[in-house]
């Protein structure tokens, strides 16, 4: 059962990634792209966690944490860039 659930989740998040990619490429403005990138990072974390459950290892936790951090920092950086030009004022 867990296997099927995993497979389903894998599929969902993979598809989600493709949706995000679509939005990154075809977007009216930068804010949409940044949003999509951020969402991508989150989906990636989910995939990593799934992978950890699948392989029975907690070794990928740091990577997930890093992804979360990266998503946050780069989103803020892009947004600040749009808003102010200079991200570290």
């Amino acid at each position, binding site marked *: 059962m867990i296997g099927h659930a*995993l497979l389903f989740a894998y599929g969902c998040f993979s598809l989600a990634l493709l949706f995000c990619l679509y939005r990154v490429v075809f977007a009216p403005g930068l804010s949409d792209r940044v949003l999509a990138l951020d969402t991508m990072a989150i989906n990636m974390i989910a995939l990593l966690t799934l992978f950890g459950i699948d392989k029975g290892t907690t070794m990928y936790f740091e990577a997930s944490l890093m992804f979360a951090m990266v998503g946050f920092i780069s989103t803020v950086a892009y947004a600040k860039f749009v808003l102010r030009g200079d991200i570290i004022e």
Partner: protein
Amino acid sequence: MIAEIIVSVLLVLGGFFGLVGSYGLVKLPDPMTRLHAPTKSATLGVGAVLVASLIWFPARHGVLTWHELLITLFLFLTAPVTGYFIAKAHMHLGWSRDDLPRPAPGKDWATFCDPDKESLVDRQPGD
């Protein structure tokens, strides 16, 4: 067994919300509406998966890890900020102040106010 069911449900739920969040990104008509989908759904989606993992490891491998909780908390802590910033960026790029309600007569939203306004500028470099 119970744990497995719970985990499976959480996984399915997580996958569903993750997908919906990203689908919303594609489907919803305008950028501001699109912002709603991922800030919540994706967060909950990944949250569900993380909780599933949190349950799964002690149940299956007998090791309790709190790492997933940390990640979840981190995401919940930061998601509003990213949403806030993306919204601001979008307002800055795509909205005129006249299309928005005013906070108070004579006042403006921070994004639209004059950056060189006296109250905001503390000092020039070299002071």
